[in-house]
């Protein structure tokens, strides 16, 4: 028994890195990044300091993403805000993605926000993005305030209006309130990282 306890006590002292890393943690500064979008324009997190930044991990080939774009969830949420206060950035960490694919998809779905190209998966893994869609809301000071799903309707069959967590978080930040739901379980396809 005694040795068991010392073993447990030792294990407490083990570095916590042994646990799966959750990199973009709510309440902690968001990992910095600089990525080119589908048109070759660079975007860095630092340049948007002072604005609320929404990151949306995306993959046009994923049925969950398709469902939300068909239902205009992302487009409507993004265009509902003053662009001088809220920046919406889609990020595609799919290994097989290319800028022209993103451009074609943008045209097809008719949205204006950039699709950042992360085929190496570096930024995706820094953020710990696991699903498409996987959403992050970062406040004007660069601190992550929301991480998780876009809404509470994983199957797309909820009766009534689903709760849009991202909208809830951004609205709260704009009015200086606490984010009502700061984390949720993301759902969707796995991010197709380069392996």
């Amino acid at each position, binding site marked *: 028994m005694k040795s068991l306890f010392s073993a447990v006590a030792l*294990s407490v002292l083990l570095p916590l890195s042994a646990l799966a890393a959750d990199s973009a*943690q*709510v309440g902690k500064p968001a990992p910095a990044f600089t990525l080119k979008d589908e048109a070759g324009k660079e975007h860095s997190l630092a340049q948007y300091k002072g604005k609320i930044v929404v990151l949306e991990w995306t993959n046009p080939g994923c049925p*969950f993403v398709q469902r939300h774009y068909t239902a205009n969830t992302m487009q409507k949420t993004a265009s509902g805000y003053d662009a001088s206060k809220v920046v919406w950035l889609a990020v595609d960490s799919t290994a097989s993605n290319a800028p022209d694919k993103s451009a074609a998809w943008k045209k097809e779905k008719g949205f204006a926000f950039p699709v950042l190209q992360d085929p190496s998966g570096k930024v995706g893994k820094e953020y710990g993005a696991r699903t498409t869609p996987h959403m992050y809301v970062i406040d004007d000071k660069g601190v992550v305030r929301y991480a998780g799903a876009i809404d509470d309707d994983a199957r797309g069959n909820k009766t009534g209006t689903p709760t849009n967590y991202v909208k809830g978080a951004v609205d709260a930040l704009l009015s200086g309130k606490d984010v009502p739901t700061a984390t949720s379980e993301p759902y969707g396809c*796995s991010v197709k*990282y*380069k*392996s």
Partner: protein
Amino acid sequence: MTRPRVRRTGGGGLFWLAGLGAWLTAASALAVPPPASAVASGGLDEGVPRMEATLLTDVTQVKPGDTFRVGVRFKMHPGWHIYWKNPGDSGLASDVAWDTPGTTVEALRWPMPATLRTPDGFITTYGYEGEVLLSAQARASEQAQGVLHLSAAADVLVCEVNCLPAQVVLSRALPVGPETLGDAEHAPAFDAAWAQVPVAPEQARYTAALALDGPSLATGGTFTGTVTLTGADGKVPAVEKDFFVPERVKGLRHLALTPVEGKPGTFKLEGKTALEVPAVEPRFLGVMRLGTAASGYQSLSLDLPLAPVVKAPSGAPGVPTPVAAPVPGGAGPADASGLSLGLVLVFAFLGGLLLNLMPCVFPVLALKAYGFTRTVGEERGRVGAHALAYTGGIIGSLLALALTVLGLRAAGHGVGWGFQFQEPLFVAAVAAVLVAFSLNLFGVFNVGTDGTALVEKVDASHGLGRSVGEGVLAVVLATPCSAPLLGTAVGFALTSGAATVLLTFVLMGLGLALPFCLLVLVPGLAQRLPRPGAWMERFKQLLGFALLGTTVWLVWVMGGLTGVDGMARTLAFLAVVALGAWLYGLVQGSTGPRKLVGVLTVVALVGAGALWSLRFEEAHAQAPRVSEAQAWSDEAVATALAAGQPVFIDFTADWCLTCKFNERTVLQSDDVRAAFARHRVAFLVADWTRRDARISAKLAEFGRAGVPMYLLVSPSAPNKPEVLNELLTQDGLIDAVRRASGRVADARPL
């Protein structure tokens, strides 16, 4: 997305087979392919379906009221998978919804899932490849006639690299007949699937237990612990990689088990908590596969209590520190016990009030009664001044104590209520004051400015200084007694900002002073007291003996601190003090150089006596004085809990009179001891007579800063000790013990 696939069955055999059903009395051994409506494929991948679902039953005919099994078999293309009820990092839980009029269907039984990882290991999911039967127990209603219509809507996500959602609706009719006939072709598939469904440990003759490192989980933090599995035969099979799959639990973000090397059945638990406090206390939920491919598998479903999740303070989450760093800017935040400052101040005031009734304050209370009968004869203004002086004495000394606490805290010492009694020199000083005081009451010498006063006088020393002194004395004697509520308030104060500490102590002082002030200041009360007279002189002397009694207790405390030698030294010092007091009494009436010489002699004598006698060494830790008790340690608690015993922990100290009172009147009473024996209670004593950082930390964990504290831990809720009232009663304690062990009786075996 569905595309029913019509299966052509060979020949027209179905027609005459149906008629044959009535002739069959034994389980049918005839293979009947499922009807076309019971088969569908989904997950179309560029025209190729990647998943085929079939609705199956393990009977071909059912008798009304009988049970049977129904399920959906999913067949995936090689490389494709669907998900378990917790999909893991991504994906979507598979879902089967039933529509079965005339049949009740129970919860879905999920076979042990596989752990699937992306090649880079970044994303882990749980699910099924190849083939899986998600099934449930069903019962035909007693009124069933003709055929039962069974229909299932399956909603699954089929993934290889890309994911294809598939929703299929399957249906079939099940004939109702006089006998239930097994389906020889499909029953084995159900048997095989059910063999892989995890069962509760006790069904497999195991007991599972979870010991968490710590009493609670802080939000946004990590936690660790140990899960142990014990087999009825003392053996636990080895496990393979990916043997454990966690369920999704509200309030938790991560649960993982790793086997401890060389200890089959012992697993290290690591977990992470979510940022928000969940509505219900999270439990440890997950499935575990014991055994290896060579030995065969046995899956268990674990459901073990964890601990409540508490909001982590804004600092680092995790282990509570005995004393938090001072919070700048005065009032600190409420501590883990969720108290607001206002409530704490109310507690402090009430606690101070109750302190008057605690056993260790009794001598002071007696003194007060005496001092106050003395003041009754005086006019109101004087009385008010005395009340003020007494209150001032109390608050002044409490503030001194608070500042000491703050000073010690700033120096990095964890201190608690009554800590001053862990210092032998302090105890000796208090004892000396008491002896001197009692000699003063006996009339050996007088205190005060009036040197010409005669001893026969009722009391020459009714100066305000005396009232102040009484206030100080009240505090000095009261500190070791944590009255109910006071422990909480002081515990809170000691971990808060400086302003909070001071404010709490002031309110406590007001509470302590209130009864005396009321007695003195309310005119009606003053009239009811006996008139001053010759009896007062005797009463005064009697009180001197009360003080000597208190001294005896202090000497005994000293024994606990410093052993027999220390007691002897203390007594020697007290004798010197008494001699000094007597000498002072001799020279008191004289004037000029003779008095000066006398006073100097007394000071020198007492000083020398102190230097000569007060050299203490720590006594060796003694065995606890309560019978059948053993010393407290986390290991002892865990050992007892593992043996299924409730554990009672007595946090006590020799200088704590409340503790001693409880021990004598409750803990050592025959009824309580019999109850402890009956319920196999392990009695552990945490003795705080001398400083002990472990005990201080444990007290702080429960928001206390002093003893007594009584914890009762039930083996069925090892992480939720019950904190009992500081004033124990026999009945209350016996009830609590019964609860703690009774919960074991009706709880699942752990």
